[in-house]
Structures are given as structure tokens and as C-alpha cells.
């Protein structure tokens, strides 16, 4: 960056904000494109999890929690280094959530709290908790990182709504006879190319919608409320920006008109226009544009006083973080004990939760909707992590997408043939409900659907007396536990109302069989 931009009293219209807007637009466009590309099978030139790979908080907390440096974490280096030079420019120029918040910009002059600067430390506390919890092996708080948060919201809330409304709209046109062939072909070639053929809801959509709407509502209260007070990624960049080379500097021509103070979306400019709150400027360059005197520039300048937590504060964060994470894990262990969390294939290793950053990418790409975000099913420690829910789908035999898009390797990148053998659980027949067992009627759907080359469901022949008094032979399903992989297609397709008469359980602690 040119350190003479806008310097001096030259009355020249700066273009930096336009450049920034283009940057924001491109970044947001790429984010959306990659989101959509992830739904279509690979062969995309850019890794579809690019943003999550670039996210330094994902890299740092993932490394801390997983106790190992993965190659994906190295992708975060460019942004880490850039932050040392350019400060929080990511927040102003690249962050897709920040761009959305900028779109909903409302005029406001006052910050909403007194002692505003103290409140800004909230996000640093949140970052502190996130990192200490990560040190403890818990990544639940990563659900507040803006990139996983936005990704998850789009997966669980936006995409299903868009898909449903498209499907409904096209169906409306089709059945009303308005360009029916066009409506059908748009449905086949456009909608189904991007979204699941049958629109389906994602679990916890209301939770994620509430989180996201809260962020939007707070944006009305104060612009970029999220970025100022809450964002843990913003907090990380804020800390990193301490030695930043380029800073906002104000020349002598400043007459203290305070226009930039009112303009600043982060409320980072202090009364009078000269001072900048350290770690809060996101280099959006609006102040350069606003200044009638052309007094503002971004230039090399000496470090200004910066946030410097007291020893007591730092210890408190560390202590609360450690105790809190321990409590969550304790609670998690207790809750998980009584539950049946079946994990995606490739997520069977013990440190799965120590690597899952809750971005929801696996949930998004699962073609059948088997993978869903958990709330308490896997304990507090596993909140928002993916679990297999056979009510909504099954593990497709010819699919290993979830492992392909996982940005942290929490779900292993299993080759298809290995995935097809991966045991994620085991099916059990509920003989009290099964049509063939309980009602002596013919039904072989579970056996029919079993995709294994050597079927894990066999039909035991039984002679029964039908309702007409005639003896007949029916097949009763029995699961071969040595063959079953727990793909859950049997549970999903069981024709009974839920719960199905054949259900898949996590058998990792089953004394009869271990994974």
C-alpha cells in the first residue's frame, strides 16, 4: 500500500473505499460460490473449504485442541502475516459476515454503552475462553467464529429455505400451467444442480437462525456490534494488529470537524478525529474518503498505546476458561454416556471432537441428510457437531463427501472403498414393532435396501398363519453384526412411523462388538 495515499492537503477524491467494496464483493461472492460448489461433486479448482482453511482461529484452536499441526493449518499463515502488517484489514475487506453487516448499515452516532472501551474487551475474553477451552480439547466455542457461524447458518437456514421456496414456486408455475415445461426444466437443471432434489430441513435451524438474527438486530443497535464487542476472530486480529505497520494517521490539516468520527463503522475514532482506538480500526478507509481536508492517510507510524490486559485479568480468563471447559467436558461425558451419537464415517477416532470446528460443511454436503448438527445428543462438549440421524437420511454407499470437505481433518478423508467398509454403528431389529416379527406380515424393505455386497440383513424363513387362516412362509429380518456398517438405510426406509423398527446404534462401547 502506498503510504502517501490521501496525505497532505491534496483535494483528490480517494478511490480506496471503492477498491475495498470491490474486495468485499469478490470475497463474499467467492464465499457463496464455494458454498454452492461444495454441494456439487469435487473437481473445483479452489478447495471448497478455502475460507475455513484461511481462518487463523480455526488453525490455532484446532492445533491446540488436536495437539498436532495439520497441513491445513498452514493455510492460515498468509492471514496471520497480513494482520501483522495491515491490522484488522480482514474484518473490513474480506470477512463475509462483516460484508453482510455493512450491507445492513444504519445511521447511528452514539455507541450504545457507557465505558464503551471496556465493553470491547468482551470479545477478547471470548477469545481467551475459546483458546483455553481449545487447550483443554474442547472446541464448542468455535461455533462463534464468524466463518463457521456463517457457513452453518447458510447450511441450516438459508439453503433449505431457498430450496423450498424455489421448489414451491416452480411447482406453482407448473401446476398453474404457466410455462410448465420451462418450470420443470429449471427445476431439473438449475435447482437440482445446486440443492437436494427433495427440500429438507436441517435440525436446529431455529437455533442458528436465532443466533444470526440476534447479530443482525444488534447491528441495528450499533453498527458492526458483532465486530466491536463479540467476534472472537476479530479479537484475534485485534491482538495481532498490535505491531501492524500501517496505521491510520492524521495530518496537520485536520480541523477537528468529527465527520470521520461519525462515519467510522467501528466507532474506532476518538472524539476530535485524531486518535484511533487500537485494535479496532478495520482499515475500511472510509475516513480517508470522508475527510474534507484530506488529512487522513494510512501510513507507517509508531505504535500507539494498546490493549494490555492486567495480570489479574489474564489469569482470570485463563482460570475461568480452564474451569469452564472442564465443566463442559465433564457434563459432556455425562450426557454422552446415555446417548447414541453415531458419527460420520471417518469420525470414529477418539479425538474427533477435538478437531471439529462446527462449521457444518459435512452436514451441507451429505446428499441424503443423514448428518445433522447435534444439540445435546453428544453432550455439551459436542454441541453443533455432526451426528448421524437416520430419521432424516442414510449414509449413501457411493459417497464419501463429508471427509472430502472437512477443513480440519476431524472427519478423515477416506477413499471410497475404505469408507464403504467403515463401521459407524450397527442396526438392531425391534422385534416388538417389526411388521414381520410382530405382525407375521411380509416386509423385507430393510433387507432390500441394505447396500452391502454381502447383505448384513438376512431373512429368516418362518411359517406363520395369515389373517385368512392359511399357513404361509415369510422372511423375518435379522442383522448380521459381523457385516453391518451402520449406514442406517434400513432405519431410514423402514415403513413404520418413527421410531423405526430397525435402528442403528453407536456400538463403540457395546460389549458384544467394538468398532
Amino acid at each position, binding site marked *: 500500500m502506498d503510504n502517501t495515499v490521501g496525505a497532505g492537503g491534496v483535494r483528490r477524491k480517494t478511490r480506496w473505499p471503492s477498491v475495498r467494496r470491490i474486495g468485499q464483493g469478490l470475497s463474499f461472492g467467492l464465499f457463496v460460490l464455494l458454498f454452492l460448489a461444495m454441494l456439487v461433486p469435487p473437481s473445483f479448482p479452489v478447495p471448497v473449504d478455502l475460507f475455513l482453511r484461511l481462518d487463523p482461529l480455526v488453525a490455532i484452536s484446532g492445533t491446540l485442541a488436536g495437539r498436532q499441526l495439520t497441513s491445513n493449518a498452514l493455510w492460515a499463515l498468509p492471514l496471520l502475516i497480513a494482520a501483522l502488517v495491515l491490522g484488522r484489514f480482514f474484518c473490513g475487506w474480506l470477512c463475509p459476515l462483516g460484508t453482510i453487516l455493512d450491507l445492513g448499515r444504519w445511521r447511528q452516532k452514539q455507541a450504545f454503552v457507557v465505558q464503551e472501551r471496556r465493553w470491547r474487551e468482551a470479545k477478547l475474553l471470548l477469545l481467551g475462553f475459546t483458546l483455553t477451552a481449545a487447550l483443554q480439547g474442547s472446541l464448542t466455542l468455535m461455533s462463534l467464529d464468524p466463518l463457521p457461524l456463517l457457513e452453518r447458518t447458510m447450511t441450516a437456514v438459508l439453503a433449505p429455505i431457498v430450496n423450498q421456496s424455489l*421448489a414451491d414456486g416452480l*411447482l406453482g408455475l407448473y401446476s398453474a400451467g404457466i410455462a410448465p415445461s420451462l418450470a420443470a426444466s429449471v427445476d*431439473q437443471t438449475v435447482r*437440482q444442480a445446486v440443492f437436494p*432434489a427433495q427440500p429438507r430441513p436441517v435440525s436446529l435451524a431455529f437455533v442458528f437462525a436465532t443466533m444470526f438474527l440476534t447479530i443482525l438486530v444488534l447491528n441495528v443497535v450499533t453498527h458492526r456490534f458483532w465486530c466491536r464487542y463479540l467476534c472472537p476472530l476479530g479479537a484475534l486480529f485485534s491482538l495481532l494488529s498490535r505491531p501492524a505497520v500501517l496505521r491510520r494517521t492524521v495530518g496537520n490539516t485536520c480541523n477537528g470537524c468529527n465527520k470521520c468520527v461519525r462515519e467510522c463503522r467501528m466507532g474506532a475514532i476518538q472524539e476530535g478525529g485524531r486518535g484511533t482506538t487500537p485494535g479496532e480500526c478495520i482499515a475500511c478507509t472510509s475516513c480517508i474518503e470522508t475527510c474534507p481536508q484530506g488529512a487522513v492517510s494510512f501510513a507507517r507510524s509508531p505504535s500507539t498505546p494498546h490493549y494490555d490486559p492486567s495480570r489479574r485479568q489474564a489469569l482470570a480468563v485463563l482460570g475461568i476458561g480452564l474451569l469452564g471447559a472442564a465443566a463442559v467436558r465433564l457434563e459432556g461425558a455425562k450426557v454422552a454416556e446415555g446417548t447414541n451419537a453415531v458419527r460420520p464415517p471417518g469420525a470414529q477416532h477418539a479425538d474427533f471432537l477435538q478437531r471439529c470446528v462446527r462449521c457444518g460443511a459435512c452436514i451441507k454436503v451429505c446428499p441424503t441428510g443423514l448428518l445433522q448438527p447435534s444439540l445435546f445428543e453428544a453432550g455439551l462438549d459436542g454441541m453443533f457437531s455432526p451426528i448421524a440421524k437416520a430419521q432424516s437420511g442414510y449414509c*449413501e454407499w457411493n459417497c464419501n463427501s463429508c471427509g472430502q470437505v472437512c477443513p480440519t481433518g476431524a472427519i478423515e478423508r477416506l477413499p471410497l472403498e475404505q469408507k464403504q467398509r467403515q463401521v459407524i454403528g450397527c442396526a438392531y431389529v425391534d422385534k416388538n414393532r417389526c411388521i414381520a416379527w410382530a405382525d407375521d*406380515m411380509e416386509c423385507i424393505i430393510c433387507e*432390500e435396501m441394505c*447396500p452391502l455386497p*454381502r447383505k448384513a440383513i438376512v431373512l429368516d424363513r418362518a411359517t406363520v398363519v395369515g389373517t385368512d387362516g392359511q399357513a404361509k412362509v415369510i422372511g423375518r429380518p435379522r442383522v448380521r453384526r459381523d457385516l453391518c456398517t451402520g449406514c442406517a438405510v434400513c432405519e431410514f426406509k423402514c415403513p413404520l412411523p418413527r421410531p423405526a423398527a430397525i435402528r442403528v446404534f453407536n456400538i463403540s462401547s457395546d460389549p458384544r462388538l467394538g468398532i
Partner: protein
Amino acid sequence: MKPKLSRRELLSHLAKLGLVIGGVSIALPGFGCSSETKSTGAGSPLARPTEALPFPAINQASPVSTTTPPAAGTAAAVAASTPTVEAGGRADLAVVKGGDYQAITRAAVGAIGGIERFVPRGSKVVVKPNIGPNRAPQYAATTHPKVVAAMVTLCQEAGASKVTVLDYGLNGPNVGYDTSGIEAAVKRAAGTMERITMMKFKQVAVPEGKEMKSLYIYQDVLDADVVITVPIAKHHSLSGLTLAMKNMMGVTRDRDPFHNNIGQRVADLCTLIRPRLTIVDATRILLRNGPSGGNLADVKQLDTVIASADIVAADAYAATLFGLKGQDIATVRAGQAMGLGTMDLSTLRIATVTI
């Protein structure tokens, strides 16, 4: 009812037939249910000793003589390259064997009267293969793409205005279109591969249905002038085998209701959507672990295609490839009871051809 043609129509086809299956001799060799584990595929299968069929009547008592003189005998069949014009008696059911799957499909259609008998010029045709499981062709869980492509081409040659290929299989819309190789083959043949959209299923009454009173059927099938069912012959634990009749489930939206009393309910469906032509792909059949298979050890290569206007007869014959009878298959029994055709193979003129 078994489609019957007048004697005059029958005779008019005789002349044609010599052209349609030129280079192909019709004969009644002992081809049928081989007890061998696998056909070699190479060399003339006729070189092998004639095996006893489970239903000798199919061959020996073939009543071709009722309207036409018996087709060329075994001797002529050995001279497989000799065109046999007098062999042109149009058969009720053709069983054609050979390594070129497009050619045997064409020959099978030719032997039962040629594609023009079934596809009038300008008609809209739906070809319904089995694309159910998400499996590659060699696993014998889906119709062979070459058989499907041959049918598309034949219909186009007959002057069909549109040839649409579709299947709403057991794993959901469009699953297996790619893996089965069928979508690519249909596109190469310039047919229309219909990607299923749920909006096109329309509820219709089943006036002749005994148990099925109404069904959701795909719009293109309702609109079609001609429906051709092109199943693969494979094992299925409820219906015994899944063949041409059960293949028709893929034009309906809701599969679950079929699983109770499957024979009758599939037959009900076939009274509503009556395929004019049945092509059973037995180029390789799936003996066990159907309908999805996945194990090559369960696959048996037969290099055979069966064609008939009679869906019940075609299924009954296909059952013999598994060592079963039509009587053993619920859909076939119900199909005959509903008047959709006959499973009594002894009443049929069967042309067995090897090319």
C-alpha cells in the same frame, strides 16, 4: 390380454422379417437355463451340447407350426450366418444371445415383428430401464447401458418424435443415472434423459386395480404413446425376482405401498401403465443379494436379451434363467390372473437366436 394380431397382419410381417433379422437365423437350440456357473462368452454357445431345459416344452413343443412352418431346425442354427427367410415366422417371444449387446437387442425386437410394430411414426416413447441402485453396470443391478441405447436408437429409427428415458429408483431421484452409465449412453444416442422432478408426479385413478386404487405417476409416462419396459433380470427377496413388471414401479412416486402383497399391486400398476414392449436385459443377471448387489461373484453373464409384447411371458421366461418358473414369481402369477399376459410358455412361439 395377450396382444393378438390378425392373420393378415401376421403375414405382412413375414416379408419384413427377413430384412429385419437379415444375417440372423432363428432356431430353437437348447439354450436356456445353464447349470454352469458362468458362460464363457467366447465362441459359439451352440458348440456346447444341448442342455436340458427346465421346461422342455419351450423348445420341443414350440407351436410355431400353428401358423407358420417350424422355424429352421437346429442344423440351420449352426449355420448361423445364413439368412433364413423362411424362419421369418414372427415369434411371440425372442431370446437372442450374443456378445454385441446392441445387436442382440435389435435382433430380439426384429424377431417379434420389428420396432415399427410397437412404435408408430411420430409417437412419444418412454423407455423405462432399471436404474435403481447406485451401481456400475458390471454389478448387474441396473439395465445395461448398451441395451438401453439400442432401444433409444430403434425408436428413433421408427420415427418416434421423442424418446425419453427415466427411472425413479429406490434410492431417490436421479441416483444412479451417472454410475449406471445409462445417462451417458442415452445422451450419446441422442435420447432425452429425464431428470426426475417431484412436481411431475400426478395422481391418477387405477380403474382396474384390485388393491391399488390410485397412484402418483410421472407425467411423461402418462403423456407417452408408447411405454417400453427394459428391466435387468435380478434377484429380489420379496418378489423372488425383479423383472419387467416390477420395473414399472419406477414410474410411480410412492414405493412403500407396493411392499405388501407385491404381486397384486404391481399387476394393478401394469393394468394402468401397459408397456407395449418388454425387453429383459439378461446380458448378465444378479443371482443373489439383490436388488442392489455389489458383488461380482453374484453376477452371471448370459449375453442374452429377451423381447416380447407380452410382459408376463417375458418375465416367465426370464425366471427360467434363474432355474425358476413363472409360477414362482408373485408378479407373474398376478399378471396372468389380471389378464396381462400368459406365463404358460408352452403356448408361445419362441425364437431362440444366437448371433
